[in-house]
């Protein structure tokens, strides 16, 4: 076991508020009258729909097939009938083609308890990756990049180290923590399967020190017998960012414009690791996930097990949300999540949290006072003070020279700015401009 100081630059210490939803048990929520399953729940091409109106589906039936290499399978999360295939609100704020399924009222809940007897020595790397792809597993930390793509590095790249990311650095969220407390054995096996798939030498589970219960569980789980290292890091946002975590754990920097595999490392979220375990041992596709439902005004905050496609209003009703309060609902964490206007929006594979904020801390924007705090706290080391003016002048060349594309949009700069300038917003806009320009050429 290694105790080390976080080595990555910058970062902030927002109040974590994790005590609101912290609890060892997993609460359950029912899917409501209908579930809406969007065909875009991952980075890459949207899935192609394979069902039609009126079809009867069982839990786990495929409703969308990948339309490219970087794409993913989509499965039905309930037993029921396809009611409609139309555009519906999506967590991105846009409206996206989705399949609406009405669950059968008296559908028997199929218990997937029949664990298959598989030993990690006997299963081949190819089998593991195929099963992961068929189960539609995507990165569950929030970026939702298809996992099978990450497990197939291009020729010439080798992966030595597998880091299982349990940092959960976003304030408020406790889903990964609860997962560790309840399913540590599954996580261990999932990590071993991913290790086998990419032929990595070492597994490290990285966790921040503000989750004592989960750390206790990990310490008692005899990880070292399974050849897994535990790395407890001092809490700092955005430690859970892939590149920041590599720097914190291994003291290696991912080059500008590069990928973690350039440092021979693979980072997987702890929930992804558990999903891999379920996919291989129970042949269960990714149809449900743990989501933190939290907020000061909720009557029953906690970590819920939700079916993909459940509408937010159904989950929030269960958590005791007063719809007339007009509180802001955010999907994801407070730092990187996106606000939701329509509570008809469904939960997708990447929804790690649903946050209800009563007070929105909005500051008025004042002119930049050149204090340089944004530069000091930027985990990438960007010259953030220069970017708004370069963007306003539409100076693409300068934006490129300022390495805007390396921004991870963590929001530290906006959080820390004493003048209340929405810096991360400028950075996002600058990225769009650069991409537009690249497309033109």
């Amino acid at each position, binding site marked *: 076991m290694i105790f080390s100081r976080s080595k990555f630059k910058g970062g902030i210490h927002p109040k974590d508020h994790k005590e609101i939803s912290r609890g060892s048990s997993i609460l359950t929520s029912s899917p409501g009258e209908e579930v809406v399953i969007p065909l875009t729940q991952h980075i890459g091409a949207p899935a192609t729909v394979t069902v039609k109106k009126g079809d009867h589906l069982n839990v786990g039936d495929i409703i969308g097939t990948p339309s490219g290499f970087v794409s993913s399978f989509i499965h039905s999360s309930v037993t029921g009938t396809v009611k409609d295939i139309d555009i519906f*609100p999506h967590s*991105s*704020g*846009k*409206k996206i083609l989705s399949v609406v399924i009405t669950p059968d009222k008296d559908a028997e809940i199929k218990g997937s308890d029949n664990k298959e007897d598989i030993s990690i020595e006997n299963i081949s790397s190819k089998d593991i990756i195929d099963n992961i792809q068929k189960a539609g597993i995507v990165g569950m930390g929030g970026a939702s990049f298809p996992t099978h793509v990450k497990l197939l590095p291009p020729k010439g790249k080798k992966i030595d180290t597998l880091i299982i990311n349990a940092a959960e650095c976003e304030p408020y969220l406790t889903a990964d923590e609860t997962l560790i407390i309840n399913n540590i054995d599954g996580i261990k096996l999932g990590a071993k399967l991913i290790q086998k798939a990419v032929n990595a030498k070492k597994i490290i589970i990285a966790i921040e020190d503000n989750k004592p219960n989960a750390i206790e569980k990990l310490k008692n789980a005899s990880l070292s017998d399974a050849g897994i290292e535990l790395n407890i890091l001092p809490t700092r946002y955005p430690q859970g960012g892939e590149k920041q975590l590599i720097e914190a754990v291994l003291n290696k920097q991912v080059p500008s414009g590069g990928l973690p595999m350039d440092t021979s490392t693979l980072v997987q979220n702890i929930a992804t690791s558990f999903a891999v375990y379920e996919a291989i041992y129970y042949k269960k596709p990714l149809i449900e996930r743990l989501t933190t439902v939290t907020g000061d005004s909720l009557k029953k905050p906690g970590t819920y097990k939700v079916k993909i496609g459940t509408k937010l209003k159904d989950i929030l009703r269960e958590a005791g949300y007063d719809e007339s309060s007009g509180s802001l609902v955010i999907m994801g964490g407070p730092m990187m999540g*996106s*606000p939701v*206007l*329509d509570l008809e929006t469904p939960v997708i594979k990447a929804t790690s949290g649903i946050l209800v904020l009563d007070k*929105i801390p*909005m500051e008025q924007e004042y002119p930049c006072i050149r204090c340089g705090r944004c530069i000091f706290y930027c985990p990438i080391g960007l010259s953030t003070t220069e970017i708004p003016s370069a963007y306003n002048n539409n100076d693409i060349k300068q934006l490129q020279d300022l390495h805007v594309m390396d921004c991870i949009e963590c929001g530290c700069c906006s959080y820390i700015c004493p003048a209340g300038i*929405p810096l991360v*917003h*400028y950075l*996002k*806009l600058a990225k*769009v401009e650069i991409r537009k320009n690249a497309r033109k050429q």
Partner: protein
Amino acid sequence: MENVFAILLPIFTVAGLGLVFGFVLSFASKRFAPEINETEEKLFELLPGVNCGACGYAGCQAYGKAIIKSKEEINKCPVGGDELVGKIAKLMGVDASSALKQFAAVHCQGGKNTFSKAAYLGINTCAGEALTTPNRGACEWGCLGYGDCVKVCDFDAIHMSEDGYPVVDIDKCTACGKCVKACPRAVITLIPKTQKIYLGCRNPQKGKIVKDVCSHGCIGCRMCSLPKFTPSGKVKMKGNLPEIPSDWDDYEISVQKCPGKCFVVMEDIKTFSYETVSP
């Protein structure tokens, strides 16, 4: 005597040097003269010289060179319009294929007539809201009202109206197309200046949805396409929106009857009083 010599020597030296260089330069200017293309010079003088880039070239000179070298079409300059095409055609000795003079039409009369469920707090530009808040419960197709188009206009031809949506000064508009590119919602398009009426809405959704978000939206009632209101039958429906042809004349009843008041008649906006906003 010595004093006089001291004065004359530098005078003659400098004069002599001047003479020598003069000959060298005059020889060089004849021998290495660049080929002056008279047509090119004249063409550059004809082009407006505002370098707006609407023709798709870096500036007026670049467009002029393209006309001469790669036989580019001569009707690409919207600033000069028909007049310029005639002049260039005369100069170059080609047919004057007419360039339709266009202007930027704003296909939205939302602004303060729209209803929205939430507020947007962030950078006060259309691009800013379009990126982070694709839908705030208001019309997803209409004008966002921060005036990105006003800021990019080089000709002071587009202004924010009191109702919160941009209005184009048809006389000043040169159809350079900068506002068309700046609008993240694609509300602005270029239409011929001869057109008398256009549709001030581009929301193709069903009537009920449109009515929920805007009092000036097209609800797809199809009245303007009926022969009762348009005897010439020039208006055809395309989905939920009518397609307005550029030569539609018998529009008076339709304008009166339109439940969303979504038609914009050119004569009306010509007499519009502009409320200038500082960008």
